[in-house]
């Protein structure tokens, strides 16, 4: 399927950043070729310059702050950096098209789906209205949107996230472009949807024979879709080559480290903890978010987020809660910590029902069950110093401030941060370090149970691996019990002894991780497992001592 006419040739591309940025060049000497009918994956950690390379090709960099300083970009042999803006406008959307990451925000909320697809056609095609509409509906059909005619008239907020991304794809493909640039098109989607979209892109690209520059940070996705891989690190290209080669025998140490950080899908053997006492027990939990016809918020149907849910957690055990977006995972974790009031049910921590506590008792009980949050930046008050953040809990529970602060410094060491970090503010740390602070804060209360809601999903893989390892270490050393919420089955496989699979607020399957993974009973679980990108690829194992 690859014929060797290059569609896009990038040579020695250097993109300059404004003064005062963390580095002078976002990209330095990027070389890359996309042939027609070929999918080239651009991988790299956050901030490595992936999006800017896409922007440079489209000539949509936020100039003059960020601009191309050197190099050339050729599209079908034509130098894109030399042509006029008018010519470039004619190429954009027509010959080169782009798919963005966030389907929520990439579509104009005030225009119908049809209007927005039609806009591309209107801009680049001379056809009458009826012909254009027919074409648009045909495209919606091709991206497998159910009922394309009604979707044509729908506003973006009236269709689901996956469908929106399909609309984006339809929009970018409707003029059969030679080059498609997809900037993390599936990152915001559920695994099952992600797989469908990836398949769709592959399928259409094969039909059209276009070249695709696919940007991602997920090696699973790379394994799923790539023909060629280019690895970026801090704006430098460290490795490139055919996908199979780079994935299975990476040459550069950075690539090796990255790939090694990808969690394997093979769960560890379960620990025999079932004899230990139960520390956390939920029975018959229910939560329905009432329909709210807010004044201007529009109609909202009542959502049953959690339905008759019961579970238990033994001392020293890690219980994973997995499921797709909206399945109620977060709601469970918030009910369990009573950040959200359940409609009914009981949550017993060491035998005391947390949900029945009076506000005063509750404050005392909070010591026992602590939480680690998803977004390490958002969960740390940006205006507090690290010591104060960590010492805050104990102080609120009556500990003497000096003592609490001294202990906070110890805890920093425990989570492998230098105590000199104590007087800094959260924004002075990297994402992984922030999450360690969050963990230290939870540990400062010496809780019996820690509830972690997607604690690593906002982190780059390498950092993710470190944080997971730390969590596992601490759990084992301090005999903690962990309720671990995640949508990432790879992560769940790494860490959890048992897992609960949720769908629409209900448990559809639960059991020891290994057995669920090996032999999923419920159709939904099967579906989830088979949607994991790159599930057939096992990252090559390697000694990680170098890192």
């Amino acid at each position, binding site marked *: 399927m690859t014929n060797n006419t290059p569609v896009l040739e990038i040579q020695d591309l250097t993109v300059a950043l404004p003064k005062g940025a963390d580095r002078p060049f976002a990209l330095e000497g990027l070389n890359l070729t996309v042939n027609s009918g070929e999918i080239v994956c651009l991988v790299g950690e956050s901030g490595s310059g992936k999006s800017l390379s896409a922007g440079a090709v*489209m000539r*949509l960099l936020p100039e003059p702050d960020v601009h191309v300083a050197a190099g050339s970009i050729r599209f079908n042999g034509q130098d894109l950096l030399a042509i006029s803006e008018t010519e470039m*406008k*004619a*190429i*954009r*959307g*027509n010959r080169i*098209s*782009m798919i*963005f990451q*966030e389907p929520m*925000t*990439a*579509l*104009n*909320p*005030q*225009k*119908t789906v049809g209007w927005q697809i039609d*806009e*591309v056609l209107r*801009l*680049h095609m001379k056809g009458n209205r009826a012909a254009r509409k027919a074409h648009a509906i045909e495209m919606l059909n091709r991206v497998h949107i159910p009922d394309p005619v009604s979707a044509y008239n729908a*506003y973006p*907020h009236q269709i689901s996230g996956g469908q929106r991304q399909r609309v*984006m794809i339809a*929009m970018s493909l409707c003029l059969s472009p030679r080059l498609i640039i997809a900037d993390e098109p599936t990152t915001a989607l559920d695994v099952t949807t992600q797989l469908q979209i990836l398949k769709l892109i592959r399928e259409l690209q094969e039909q059209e024979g276009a070249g695709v520059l696919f940007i991602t940070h997920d090696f699973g996705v790379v394994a799923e879709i790539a023909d060629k891989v280019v690895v970026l690190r801090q704006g430098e290209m460290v490795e490139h080559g055919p996908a199979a080669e780079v994935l299975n025998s990476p040459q550069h140490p950075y690539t090796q480290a990255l790939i090694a950080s990808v969690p394997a899908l093979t769960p560890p053997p379960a620990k025999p903890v079932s004899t230990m006492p139960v520390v956390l027990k939920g029975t018959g939990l229910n939560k329905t978010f009432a329909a709210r*016809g807010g004044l*201007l*918020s*529009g*109609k909202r149907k009542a959502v049953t987020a959690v339905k008759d849910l019961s579970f238990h957690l033994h001392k020293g055990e890690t219980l994973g809660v997995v499921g797709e977006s909206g399945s109620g995972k977060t709601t469970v974790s918030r009910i369990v910590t009573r950040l959200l009031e359940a409609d009914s049910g009981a949550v017993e921590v060491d035998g005391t029902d947390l949900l029945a506590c009076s506000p005063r008792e509750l404050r005392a009980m909070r010591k026992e069950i602590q939480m680690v949050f998803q977004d390490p930046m958002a969960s740390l008050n940006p205006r507090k110093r690290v010591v104060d953040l960590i010492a805050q809990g104990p102080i609120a529970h009556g500990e003497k401030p000096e003592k609490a602060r001294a202990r906070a410094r110890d805890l920093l060491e425990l989570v492998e941060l230098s105590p000199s970090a104590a007087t800094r503010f959260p924004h002075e740390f990297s994402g992984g370090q922030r999450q360690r602070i969050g963990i230290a804060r939870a540990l400062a209360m010496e809780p019996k149970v820690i509830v972690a809601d997607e604690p690593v999903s906002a982190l780059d893989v390498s950092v993710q691996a470190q944080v997971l390892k730390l969590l596992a270490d601490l759990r084992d050393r301090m005999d903690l019990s962990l309720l671990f919420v995640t949508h990432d089955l790879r992560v769940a496989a790494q860490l959890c002894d048992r897992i609960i699979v949720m769908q629409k607020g209900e448990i559809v399957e639960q059991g020891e991780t290994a057995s669920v993974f090996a032999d999923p009973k419920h159709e939904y679980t099967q579906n989830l497992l088979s949607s994991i990108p790159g599930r057939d690829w096992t990252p090559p194992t390697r000694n990680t001592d170098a890192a």
Partner: protein
Amino acid sequence: MKLRIPPIMIYALRRLIQAVPVIVLIMIGTFLLLKLAPGDTVDALVGDMGGADAEFIARLRAEYGLDQPVWVQLWRYMLKLATFDFGWSFVYEQPVATILLDRLGTTLLLMATSLSFAFTIGIALGAIAARRVNSATDNLISTLGLVFYATPSFFLSLMMMLLFSVKLGWLPVGGIKTIAGFYTGWDHVLDVARHLVMPTAALSLIYLSFYLRLMRASVIEVADLDYVRTARAKGAGEWRLMIHHIMRNALLPVITLLGLQFSTVLGGSVVVETIFTLPGLGQLAYQSVVQRDMNTLMGIIFLCSIIVVVVNFLTDLLYARLDSRIELA
């Protein structure tokens, strides 16, 4: 069992019901507040008359029911208000409803012209400035906006009057129409329009600068959003981006402000109406405070609340019309 009431009616009804407690709160509050003020309307009347003897004053007070306890007065007033009876103005010797109706037209006209002028010019200038951020045009527009904002309206009014009426003789000094001009038809419209030019300008410039600044910020913000980038990647030109993608979204916060500002404009018109002798509600409100003309002031506040409720309702409709994400009901 399905009643076929259009959802917009239900929405309107609900808004109305929600407004009732607010309005009652306002009315009671204003009443009591005014009762706290030293002196009453009889004092003001006598002051205006140039004095009177004690008996005369006592008789007036009894006549106007001002010798009753405050709670009785309040209760009587609220009872009457419930039947939309605004009572009698002792200062104007007319039913309050008549006075208000007389004045309402002028005020609505002034507000409508000022706000629409401020709004259209404000958003146009704001959009232009935002599209040329930090250019000379932007600097000029922004500076202009700031100066409009910083110039007290009375100062501006006096200066304009000096220039356009006294020096150049282009525009009439004040009033709403040429008295004893007896114009009809288009001549009348033109006459009123000429009288409104300066008051409108004086009243609207500060709001113009509000809209300008908000629109500028809003456009800059929206222009950065993902879907604008999407449109750009589709090959859309700047003009198209502005019209189809940026404007409509950028307008939303400005519309919200428009609804919120209505009552402020009425307040601002006190000074402008006083200077230009426009027989509007703003000036009337000021006079009513100074003369302790309780019924009239209460009537104005009530009317004003109704106007604000209606305007907010309309801006909500407009908002909903512009923002497809919102469904009323």
